[in-house]
């Protein structure tokens, strides 16, 4: 008598574990932007709200990633240094290097 009850219990737990859970939003991603040869790569980056953007300076000279609006800016990054920013609004955000204003790019944030 005990064996069927035990088997039934194991089956029940297995079924419960195998059920798909409630759908969860995709976990935030970390997206790199390379600063190399005096340019941001990619020139236009699209991320989802909540994603993290990581700028990495590969150039031997210093650069920044600075929002045109002035809302955020990295300090001057030496070679190998990185700057992390999590956009908190949906929209299109042009940015530039404050040291070399001809270096320009855009982050597009979608919901």
């Amino acid at each position, binding site marked *: 008598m005990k064996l069927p009850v035990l088997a039934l219990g194991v089956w029940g737990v297995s079924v419960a574990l195998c059920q798909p859970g409630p759908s969860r939003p995709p976990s935030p991603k970390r997206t790199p932007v390379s600063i190399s040869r005096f340019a941001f790569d990619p020139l236009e980056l699209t991320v989802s709200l909540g994603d993290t953007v990581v700028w990495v300076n590969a150039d*031997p*000279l210093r650069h920044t990633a600075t929002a045109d609006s002035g809302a955020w800016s990295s300090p001057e990054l030496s070679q190998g240094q990185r700057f992390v920013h999590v956009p908190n609004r949906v929209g299109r955000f042009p940015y530039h290097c404050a040291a070399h204003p001809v270096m320009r790019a855009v982050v597009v944030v979608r919901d």
Partner: protein
Amino acid sequence: MLYRRTLLCLALSFAASCQLFRPIPESPEPSASPAPARAERPAPSAPSTPSTQAPRVRGTGSVSDANIAAMVLASNNTDISYARLVPSRAQRDDVKEFGQRMLTDHVGVNSLVTELLRKLDLAAEDNTASLDMRDESANRRDAMRDLSGFAFDSAYMTNEVSYHQKFLASIDNVMLPSARNADLRALLMSVRPAVAAHLAHAELVWANVMAKK
């Protein structure tokens, strides 16, 4: 008769279509050294206008890696010497910021060259081009030393556009084709975009200075 007429019509149609679809002559190629932005402005007087001609780099002949190192160092030291005139003579903030950036970046490039020379156990060796560069920079520096305010801002920025055009031409036409060592070539390849960005930045500031004339 009808057959001949048809043939004639066909021949005429073909000739007309050839005429209609001939390629439209393209506008002249933009200069390798583009004119400063805002072309709609009246061009400033000749002495203060950066050259729109592709700069010539003379006196190069056969160029060794040691010569190239000397040319890069001479070019950098030239711009550093100009930038050191800026804080006490410039009027505009954007000119002052530009001068400070040139100082920072060209000192940075010099460090890279010095580090590479140490690694390669190579000594920079002057040639005609690097010596010419030094003479020319000394003359220009002396001329700018006596200026201040707008006169300095316009002379300095005009000179910066010309200087970076010439440096870029020298990298493309002399240094890169002549460099033998792979590390030196890699260094030149990493310096080139910096010089191009400086040129574009100089043209922007130059245009702003001249617009407020």
